[in-house]
């Protein structure tokens, strides 16, 4: 199957007076696994329904391989949607569900049988062909829904939070399966989710959406490591957001002064001058924590504080460290060698934390 290229151009849409999509533009490449990530109510599902043809738009255009599909009804668009609730036909068996689009294409019975068995083996459900949807588990239903959509040979597969009704472990499995499936069938996947872990783990690129607008588009790495604003920084993963004033401009770094923390260095990835206030993000896993004092080199930032909260997660521990000047810093310690490393850090322990100024990122230059 061949993937399609989707171009969304300046799309705006209203529900009554409420603007759900605000001048949204996106370019999705052939065969890409593209995720649209955002909190509920941000317009991501509406955008998907616009592409599928279930919603019209007030202005803008949607192109598939260069041609506008806005005037085509859903049944004439070479795209298919997977709904959150699976939407299997309750009155048809698994086999008949998958055969549904094939019958519409007036294929012969032999061709239908062959195509359906291929798809059944693709989703590893051969032995369930004659079951009714009500006899299947959530994960199986979702796989049948995907097979049924693929039977139609769409150029783009739209997935609307397809895993959100499943439990966490199954979600992980199906996500990997979805990724494999994408590699095998080669068509474009547009995946809508509110779960940042899902989005960044399988996507080629992610579009971050908030309040009807596209906030940032990029690879998962870019979106995680270089968020463009506060929303992007806080929505994806956990972070420490710090407001700080530039005291000194060096070649590579700024020396900044932050209330509650003190003076530290941060990487100079945006232009600012002395006296500007910056918003800086620093991911908790980038900070090292120890009971022993770090060798404070010229560049490294080292602070002293007390562990105020300790959350043991198994693979890591989350610490909330109150610095001497009052700021509470989130620090995640990965347990590569938990006990052998060094003395265990517990609640109310005095600790030192340190991070490399290269690991922080300036989100915004707030004021001058």
């Amino acid at each position: 199957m061949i993937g399609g290229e989707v171009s969304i151009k300046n799309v705006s849409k209203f529900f009554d007076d409420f603007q759900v999509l605000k001048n949204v533009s996106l370019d999705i490449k052939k065969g890409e696994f593209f995720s649209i990530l955002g909190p509920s109510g941000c317009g991501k599902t509406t955008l998907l329904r616009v592409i599928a043809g279930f919603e019209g738009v007030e202005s803008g255009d949607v192109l598939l391989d260069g041609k506008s599909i806005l005037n085509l009804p859903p049944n004439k668009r070479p795209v298919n949607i997977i709904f959150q609730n699976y939407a299997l036909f309750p009155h048809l068996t698994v086999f008949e569900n998958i055969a549904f689009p094939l019958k519409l294409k007036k294929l012969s019975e032999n061709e239908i049988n062959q195509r359906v068995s291929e798809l059944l083996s693709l989703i590893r459900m051969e032995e369930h062909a004659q079951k009714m949807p009500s006899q299947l588990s959530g994960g199986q239903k979702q796989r049948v829904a995907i097979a049924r959509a693929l039977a139609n040979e769409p150029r783009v597969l739209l997935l609307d939070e397809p895993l959100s009704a499943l439990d966490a472990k199954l979600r992980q499995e199906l996500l990997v399966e979805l990724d494999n499936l994408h590699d095998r069938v080669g068509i474009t996947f547009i995946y809508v989710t509110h779960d940042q872990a899902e989005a960044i783990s399988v996507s080629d690129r992610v579009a971050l959406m908030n309040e009807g607008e596209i906030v940032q588009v990029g690879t998962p790495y870019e979106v995680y490591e270089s968020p463009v604003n506060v929303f992007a920084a806080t929505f994806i993963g956990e972070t420490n957001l710090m407001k700080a004033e530039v005291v000194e401009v060096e070649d590579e770094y700024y020396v900044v002064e932050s209330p509650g923390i003190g003076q530290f260095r941060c990487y100079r990835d945006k232009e600012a001058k002395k006296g500007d206030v910056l918003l800086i993000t620093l991911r908790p896993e980038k900070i090292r924590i120890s009971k022993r004092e770090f060798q404070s080199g010229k560049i490294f930032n080292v602070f002293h504080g007390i562990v105020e909260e300790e959350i043991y997660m198994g693979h890591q521990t989350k610490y909330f460290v109150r610095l001497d000047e009052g700021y509470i810093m989130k620090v995640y310690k990965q347990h590569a060698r938990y006990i052998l490393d060094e003395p265990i850090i517990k609640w109310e322990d005095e600790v030192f934390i340190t991070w490399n100024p290269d690991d922080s990122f300036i989100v915004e230059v707030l004021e001058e």
Partner: protein
Amino acid sequence: MKYVYFLWLLFLFILPISIVFVYSFLEPQIYGGIKWSFSLEAYSYLPRYLALIWRSVWIAGVATFITLAVAVPVAFYIARSKLKNFLLLLTVIPFWTNSLIRIYAWKIVLGNNGLINQFLGLFGIGPVQFLYNSFAVILVIVYTYLPFAILPLYAAMEKVEDSILEVSLDLGASRMYTFTRVLLPNVRAGLLTAFVFVFIPALGSYAIPDLVGGVNSKMIGNEIVRQLLTVRNWPVASAMSNILTLIALLSIIFVMKRGERR
């Protein structure tokens, strides 16, 4: 508790039916009532009434078909409407008025000096004979039993998720195909209930053909009443009731069988 159900069934269902069943095999007395001696005479009248039975089935069948055809889109609309509670209320409001009065009201609407003919008269048309024929009987049956079809269909339509209709369109099906192959199979139970609720009482209609029907649109119900009250032949009236019950039973079985999954 079990015994209460049994008593209820016994006194309200089994006993009356048994009385009618037994009476049909007895001999009539001249002024009504029965003589306790076995006779198949009542059933020997049956061939005479075949045309009447056929007409009753035909009228009830056509009326049921029209009722369902109207009720399906209405029920779908109500189930998808934001005003569903209000619309359901409107559906049952006719029940607040006695059904005889409502049937009588149709005479005022359809009569030769009725509302419609007065209106047509303004254009020099008519009067058109609307009343006292099968058309009037079918129309009023449809009117009377429409709510009984809408309610079970509404209950079934409400359970059908929008997404399965959308997914059908998405997979390339036309609206018509989605309606007949996706929506209707998923409201099958509602259709069966609606059929039973409309066809059975329509088949036994008495007041409607009596008030708005003509000589050529009498139904079995009218003949049963005539046998019972005018001719005073109770066994014949009972025999015809049994035939009516049998037809109703067979039609339910037939529709249930047809309605089963392939």
